[in-house]
């Protein structure tokens, strides 16, 4: 019964409040001259969070009315173009109708609205009596002071004495971020503060200091200007230092520091180690180069490429010929590496400048054993082995500069300059053995040394212009690459003649001094013009020109006695070559709704000029003067479809002229075992490439699928025909043309989640087939290489603290010799990897990596297994995790070595390099920004 009563009561109260809750609110909006404002927005807001409750418009008489408004605290707001928005809190009446007092809107000071809101596009903020706006929107010249800025602001004046007059009154004090600036001295503030560092200005009447102290309102108001300073949004710096030492005197250290703001990016980096790392990591390289890390289209080559499609290649090695900073490079053998670099980028407005200098050096020792079995016509073979120790000392200075300026929306210029200076010293000792049968063996010991320096410079200028007609473009580029190399060396060989009586023996004793001076210059220029036709067709026309001149001056001296040298005219050569290339082409492109079709043709002309003599100025021994003219068609199609699907197909014809070295009618006997002979009748190599592909990715299920098929057919392929002298075993190579070579490269890959976000798999297969042709001992030989290649990768991230990655790939290369099936080779490369990243409690981490490689060639009984186990255990220290202590073990099984296997047209080779194996390191890292833990890939 009690329950029933209270229920009734409750129902009654609810009902009553329901009945009373709906309000009608009405009123009128006028301006200060008492004219009613029609069409004014009137809003009801909730005072606690300004949430919009209801809104309406006033009618012609300036009247508004809200019906059925829930009874709740309300704020009324009225806004009209050119007037300051008005707002006030409503006092809710007891009755259902609220007549709101007349709302009077004050016009915004004309000047304020025009200058601040309209011209400077600065938002105007009402805070009680204070009007606030973003002063940073006013354009002032660099270096301008607050005074200069104030002069621009409406309602502000600076009198002759430097006093600020705001709205007719003198400003008594200036505060910065609410604090008094130099005792409130206004001039001190206005003349010293930099206008560019100011974000907001607030002008208001502050209480006098007196009343603030006493708390007694004295009625005195001080006109106050408060200046808010900008927080530099894009400003930062980070850096890290790391050092580790360990067993066998192994050590590694690196350090980097970056500092950047909106305009400037500065970084330095350095490393040193004797654990074979001879480049930056990919992340470090990005950080080092900053905004210049990714720059595309700087080559200035326009028009379609012969291979069909453009590639962007990121390659990392410390290649002597490269201008690029080395990265992700792990040397073979044993090496000692150091590098230091500095980078500076400047980005302002439409100007973009980047520069860097990088010096790297490496001292590498390679101890290797190579074996090569050559097949002869009569089904016999001979094997040569080479046991060598090589010491390479290389140092590279590299400079990269780039400047891009968008002059205006239509014109852009890009200038790049790259320079390189390298030194390379090589010492090689080797012991070679030739085994023809157990009876016929011979040996040779070699001792070669060479000192080389080389330098190169490349400058490129690209100009791009967009015409007024949208889609009509023009671009022009010019570049020059100059290089020079100077090499001095000695070659010594001592042959053991014990088992050979033939004077034409395979090995020959030598004692020579070699001097080589090479220089080359390449000028390139390209033009491109694109004309749009009805926005979906584009007519592209391009022209390419290049001219490369090169000079090779190689002098070989036989050392007769310790102080007598005799020029060897057989080996000394002076070459002077020039290749001129002109290509003009045109294509029509259709681009609409994801479909793209391009059909084009180009005419290319190569002119090859060359001559050679024994030394510069002596009798010309041979000349090359060849002109090749070819027409190359090019078709490409790709279509993007809904659901992240894409298909593509293309055909391209490529023409590669023979190298001048292959054309020169002379015998190069600089390596007496492998003699090269030129062929002046060579035709350019023509390739026909067909590519098709399909790929899809579903972002909701993470399923992805890729398929591609590339086929290339060769005409007049430039091949090296070989003749092996069965007596001396000397191989003579002579360039020739052969038609019928083919390559097929299919690829299929499929990725899918096993358990969404926890376990993913990717399976792939890329078998390939290559058919190559050449003449071996005047017999046309066909070699077929089938490569069966497939693999699988698995990623398991079941828990936040655990990541497991595993995968395997298998490749079987079957090389079949059409004319000599008994020599068919089956080479197997099998590899597996697994990697576990485990986050342990208390900021301890464990990384374990296991790699297993197996190399097998049954016909030689070759079977090499290389299991490598690496593990590191580390702990982050400190609250901000800026310190890390790491203990790492590399190659715990002590099995590391570098293995290579290759089956060529009439030979099989295997190689093995002794490489840094087991070592342990204990290291410490400090990172200003906290250590990065890569628990996931």
């Amino acid at each position: 019964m009690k329950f029933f009563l209270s229920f009734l009561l409750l129902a009654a109260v609810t009902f009553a409040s329901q009945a009373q809750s709906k309000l009608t609110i009405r009123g009128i909006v006028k301006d200060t001259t008492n004219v009613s404002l029609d069409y004014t927005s009137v809003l009801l807001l909730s005072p606690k969070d300004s949430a919009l409750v209801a809104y309406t418009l006033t009618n012609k008489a300036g009247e508004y009315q809200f019906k059925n408004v829930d009874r709740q605290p309300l704020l009324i707001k009225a806004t009209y173009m050119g007037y300051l928005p008005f707002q006030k809190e409503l006092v809710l009446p007891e009755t259902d109708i609220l007549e709101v007092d007349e709302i009077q809107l004050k016009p915004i000071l004309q000047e304020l609205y025009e200058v601040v809101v309209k011209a400077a596009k600065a938002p105007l903020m009402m805070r009680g009596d204070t009007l606030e706006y973003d002063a940073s929107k006013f354009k002032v010249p660099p270096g301008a002071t607050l005074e200069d800025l104030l002069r621009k602001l409406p309602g502000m004046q600076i009198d002759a004495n430097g006093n600020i007059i705001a709205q007719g009154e003198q400003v008594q004090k200036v505060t910065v971020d609410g604090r008094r600036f130099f005792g409130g001295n206004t001039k001190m503030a206005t003349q010293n503060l930099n206008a560019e560092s100011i974000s907001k200005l607030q002008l208001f009447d502050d209480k006098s200091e007196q009343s603030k102290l006493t708390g007694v309102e004295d009625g005195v108001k001080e006109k106050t200007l408060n200046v808010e300073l900008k927080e530099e949004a894009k400003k930062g710096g980070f850096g890290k230092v790391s050092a580790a030492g360990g067993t066998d005197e192994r050590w590694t250290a690196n350090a980097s520091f970056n500092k950047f703001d909106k305009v400037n990016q500065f970084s330095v980096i350095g490393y040193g180690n004797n654990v074979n790392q001879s480049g930056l990591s990919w992340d470090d390289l990005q950080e080092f180069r900053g905004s210049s890390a990714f720059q595309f289209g700087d080559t200035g080559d326009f028009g379609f490429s012969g291979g069909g499609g453009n590639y962007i290649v990121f390659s990392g090695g410390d290649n002597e010929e490269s201008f690029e900073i080395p990265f992700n490079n792990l040397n073979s053998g044993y090496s000692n590496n150091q590098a230091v670099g500095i980078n500076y980028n400047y980005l302002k407005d439409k100007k973009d400048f980047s520069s860097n200098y990088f010096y790297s050096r490496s001292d590498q020792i390679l101890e290797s054993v190579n074996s090569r079995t050559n097949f002869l016509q009569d089904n016999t073979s001979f094997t040569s082995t080479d046991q060598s120790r090589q010491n390479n000392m290389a140092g590279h200075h590299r400079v990269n500069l780039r400047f891009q300026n968008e002059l205006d929306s239509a014109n852009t210029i890009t200038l790049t300059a790259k320079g390189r200076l390298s030194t390379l010293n090589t010492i090689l000792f080797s012991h070679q053995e030739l085994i023809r049968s157990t009876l016929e063996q011979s040996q040779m010991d070699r001792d070669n040394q060479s000192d080389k320096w080389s330098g190169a410079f490349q400058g490129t200028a690209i100009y791009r212009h967009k015409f007024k007609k949208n889609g009509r473009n023009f671009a022009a580029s010019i570049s020059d690459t100059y290089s020079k190399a100077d090499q001095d060396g000695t070659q010594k060989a001592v042959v053991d003649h014990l088992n050979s009586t033939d004077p034409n023996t395979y090995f020959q004793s030598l004692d020579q001094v070699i001097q080589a001076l090479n220089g080359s210059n390449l000028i390139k220029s390209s033009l491109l013009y694109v004309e749009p036709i009805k926005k979906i067709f584009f007519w592209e026309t391009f022209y390419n020109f290049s001219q490369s001149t090169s000079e090779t001056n190689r002098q070989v001296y036989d050392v007769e006695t310790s102080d007598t040298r005799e020029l060897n005219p057989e080996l000394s050569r002076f070459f002077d070559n020039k290749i001129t290339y002109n290509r003009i082409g045109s294509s029509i492109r259709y681009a609409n709704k994801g479909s793209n079709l391009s059909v084009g043709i180009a005419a290319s002309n190569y002119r090859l000029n060359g001559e050679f003599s024994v030394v510069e100025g002596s009798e010309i021994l041979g000349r090359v003067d060849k002109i090749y003219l070819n027409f190359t068609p090019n078709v490409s199609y790709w279509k993007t479809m809904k659901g992240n699907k894409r298909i593509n197909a293309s055909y391209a014809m490529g023409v590669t002229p023979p190298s001048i070295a292959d054309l020169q009618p002379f015998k190069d006997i600089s390596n007496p075992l492998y003699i090269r002979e030129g062929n002046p009748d060579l035709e350019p190599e023509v390739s026909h490439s067909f590519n098709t592909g399909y790929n899809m990715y579903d972002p909701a299920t993470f399923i992805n699928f890729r398929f591609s098929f590339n086929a290339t057919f060769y005409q007049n392929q430039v091949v090296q025909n070989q003749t092996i002298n069965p007596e001396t075993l000397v191989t003579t190579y002579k360039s020739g043309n052969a038609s019928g070579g083919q390559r097929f490269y299919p690829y299929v890959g499929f990725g899918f989640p096993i358990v969404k976000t926890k376990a993913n798999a990717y399976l792939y297969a890329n078998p390939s087939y290559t058919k190559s042709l050449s003449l071996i001992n005047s017999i046309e030989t066909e070699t077929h290489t089938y490569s069966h290649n497939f693999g699988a990768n698995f990623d398991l991230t079941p828990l936040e603290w655990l990541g497991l990655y595993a995968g395997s790939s298998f490749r079987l290369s079957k090389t079949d010799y059409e004319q000599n099936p008994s020599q068919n080779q089956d080479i197997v490369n099998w590899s597996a990897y697994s990697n576990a990243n485990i986050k342990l409690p208390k900021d301890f981490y464990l990384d374990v990596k296991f790699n297993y490689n197996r190399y097998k060639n049954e016909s030689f009984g070759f079977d090499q297994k290389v299991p490598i186990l690496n593990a590191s255990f580390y702990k982050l220290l400190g609250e901000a995790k800026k310190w890390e202590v790491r203990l790492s073990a590399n190659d715990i099984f002590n099995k590391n070595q570098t293995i290579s296997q290759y089956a060529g047209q009439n030979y099989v080779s295997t190689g093995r390099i002794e490489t840094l194996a087991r070592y342990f390191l204990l290291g410490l890292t400090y990172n200003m920004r906290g250590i990065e833990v890569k628990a996931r890939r």
Partner: protein
Amino acid sequence: MKSILKTIALILLTTGLRAQNIVGEVEYRYKIFYDKIYASMPHLTEQERDRILLSWGNPEGYSTRMKLQFWPEKSLYTFGAPYQVQSYSWQVEDYFIENNLEEQTYLKYMDQMGKTYIVRDSLNAPKWRVMNEIRDILGHMCMKAVAEDSIKGQKITAWFASDIPVPVGPEEQFGLPGLILAYDINDGMLIVEAEKITFGEPEEIITLPKKLKGREVSGTQYQDLVQDFIQTSIDSKRAWMWELRY
């Protein structure tokens, strides 16, 4: 809120006050800053954030032109003409939003999360808070309003022109006492701003494809899909803004 929108539509229709201001077309610049969004992903370390901003930061952002057509009773929104006519074409995605103010419903036909969706439901305006700040956009005095999208984790700052009393706007923004001429998300990760307003009946009215092919879902179902997609992306440490309109 719904009834208010309806009332406004009614007032505008019946009074026809200054009718030139309630029908027209707006071109917006949709400018997205992938670097800033990417750098805000929760699993990244501070150094990775700095690296992203440093090496592929683009102070200009990536712009797309969008188009809104409005009447007192409805609005239509889709892609505008591209800024740069390019000799290749990869954009095949559809993105249409139709808001019907009379019936208080919407239709979205869009390619999101790798699929084509047809979303139909009744209009449900975000909870707007109107602030005390004005700015000028193309000669219109605009007031500031803020809202939050808890699913996408976005802080939305919009500027609406009360002299264009049509409660519509670009993308999925609407429900303010005036046309939304600009808005930004998370202090500049996305900036959408009107570049051109033409009053009067648009010359070429946006038309949806005759046959809508896609998965038909309700507004709440779609929100669930979005929530699930974002959660899965965060769990697998991927960025979701490539596949889902930010």
